[in-house]
């Protein structure tokens, strides 16, 4: 009935005493801003992680062999056979052998560079893209050719981006660069771009060990990963007879795990931020109680003119709701701005979803209404005579 006027009155009293209004709303502003920042950064982080997983290939599975002491060992051929026999589930496999060698380009020792022995399928499994030349081929693996593919960091740093045909010295042998990779990690030295890939057969010889510690598989699609994982586990179990001897992880599983951890963490942080909303609500209640006392005479006068309890109550509730809603809007603006700043510092896009904004706004209005109820009810119950005579 008198919503419009109550709302305008609330806005008027907010603008009439700006410092008091700001202090009243501070709790709500901080609470809402904190929630918006946390949600924005959390969403941004989640998106970034998802993108990274997707760039690694969500269909990927990694089998790690831990049981080194066992007398029986799974052979590379068994794994190739597994893929060949299950074309409906697995699309490819590459052994992954980490090289423990001393490497040089010219006279310079490569201290942080990783040397990995892989098969010709590795590029497809990891979605690696070439900027020049070609990736390793089946023939390179079979003939143990001294060829390698290098990451963008090495290519840019040592060969000015023109590495094909150049030489990298790996464990005493000269390897000819046949291909260069696109930038992937973007972090320079020691990153995934500071890498050399050679035929895994060569890596096994360099390590003086014919065994492979890791296999990278790729499933035909993301729906097949669970069955594919089970299949690989079955195979490894038949070889080792001990489930602690190997570990198979699918990327989609990892991604889900990460998401779960992240959303749990976010819920906790949001809950902590929400405490400040509670404090803000108490602040509003406090100031509304003061306001009811200050305006006792006005309340008495309104009652003498025919205001019912309900009218007085709704007037004060609308006022509290308006105060917290204005606080909420300021909080949302502050939150979005700070999230942007924080996001650009951390290097992620932190933009809150519209639903996050809508919920924050709704919650701040609700806080005002809930905490405004007690003072409003106190006002509504005032005896008109006492209120009129109040000085």
């Amino acid at each position: 009935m008198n919503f419009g006027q109550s709302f305008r009155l609330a806005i008027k009293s907010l603008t009439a005493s700006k410092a008091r209004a700001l202090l009243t709303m501070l709790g709500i502003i901080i609470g809402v801003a904190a929630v918006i920042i946390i949600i924005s950064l959390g969403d941004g982080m989640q998106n970034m992680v998802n993108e990274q997983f997707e760039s690694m290939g969500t269909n990927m599975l990694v089998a790690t062999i831990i049981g080194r002491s066992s007398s029986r060992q799974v052979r590379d051929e068994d794994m190739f056979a597994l893929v060949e026999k299950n074309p409906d589930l697995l699309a490819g496999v590459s052994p992954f052998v980490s090289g423990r060698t001393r490497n040089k380009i010219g006279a310079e020792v490569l201290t942080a560079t990783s040397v990995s022995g892989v098969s010709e399928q590795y590029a497809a499994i990891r979605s690696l893209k070439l900027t020049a030349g070609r990736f390793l081929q089946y023939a390179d693996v079979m003939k143990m050719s001294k060829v390698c593919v290098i990451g963008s960091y090495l290519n840019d740093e040592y060969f000015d981006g023109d590495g094909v045909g150049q030489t990298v010295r790996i464990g005493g042998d000269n390897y000819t660069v046949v291909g260069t990779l696109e930038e992937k990690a973007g972090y320079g030295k020691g990153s995934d771009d500071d890498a050399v890939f050679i035929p895994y057969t060569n890596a096994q010889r360099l390590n003086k060990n014919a065994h492979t510690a890791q296999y990278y598989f790729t499933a035909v699609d993301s729906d097949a990963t669970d069955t594919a994982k089970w299949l690989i586990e079955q195979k490894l179990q038949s070889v080792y007879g001990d489930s602690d001897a190997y570990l198979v992880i699918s990327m989609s599983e990892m991604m889900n795990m990460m998401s779960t951890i992240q959303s749990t963490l976010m819920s906790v942080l949001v809950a902590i931020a929400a405490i400040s909303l509670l404090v803000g609500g108490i602040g509003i209640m406090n100031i509304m109680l003061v306001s009811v006392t200050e305006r006792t005479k006005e309340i008495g006068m309104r009652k003498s003119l025919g205001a019912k309890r309900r009218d007085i109550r709704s007037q004060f509730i609308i006022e509290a709701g308006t105060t917290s809603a204005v606080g909420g809007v300021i909080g949302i603006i502050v939150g979005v701005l700070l999230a942007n700043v924080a996001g650009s510092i951390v290097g992620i896009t932190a933009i809150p979803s519209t639903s996050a904004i809508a919920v924050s706004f709704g919650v701040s209005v609700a806080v005002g209404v809930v905490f405004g109820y007690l003072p409003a009810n106190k006002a509504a119950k005032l005896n008109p005579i006492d209120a009129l005579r109040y000085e």
Partner: protein
Amino acid sequence: MIELKDLYKLYHMGDTVVRALDGIDLTIDEGEFVAIVGQSGSGKSTCMNIIGCLDVPTSGTYKLNGIDVSTMDDDTQAVIRNKFLGFVFQQYNLIPKLNVVENVELPLLYAGISAAERRQKALRALERVGLLDKAKNRPNQLSGGQQQRVSIARALAGDPAVILADEPTGALDSRTGREVIAFLQELNRDGRTIVLITHDNSIAVKAKRIVRLADGKIVYDGPADDPRAVEIPREEEDA
């Protein structure tokens, strides 16, 4: 119009019982201009609260327009006040944050009248008190006399049967006070019932009828031009 019958209002203060109203019988007809007078503590404020439906008597009946309002709850009283009564207070009691016309609209707002009609009626009431040009001003931009006229406009806006004026001249200088009283007389000539509560005899004599209270009892009830109307009873002088 106003019918008080055998009305008592008792207050308990510790062990003693204060008889604020001690058996009042009073009838005020439509179109009357009655001044209720008495010293402080005589019960005139309590009387005014009950007539104004701001309070209920301990015993006895109060009929307003034939409706027994003596046992009503808070919210029902609010409806009665809104419909039948217009208040004019000593301190004007205007809301400083609202402009003049918004203040005058308040009783109409609580009556649930639409915005357009409220504005129209409020402006008409302001015109009646000669303050149409101040409609958009804030109360504190007006003089005391003007503010009191705004509060009279507010009392008139809802077209109530009775205007209840509680010491309407108390905060004004004597000249503006006389103007306000003249205005109330004018309203009375137009047929409106007016009940004026005052302690000031010089104001009270402007009414047509005087009801004098002392110790919760009516000690005089008659025409204002009777010399006994302003005669202060002995015991009251001693008090």
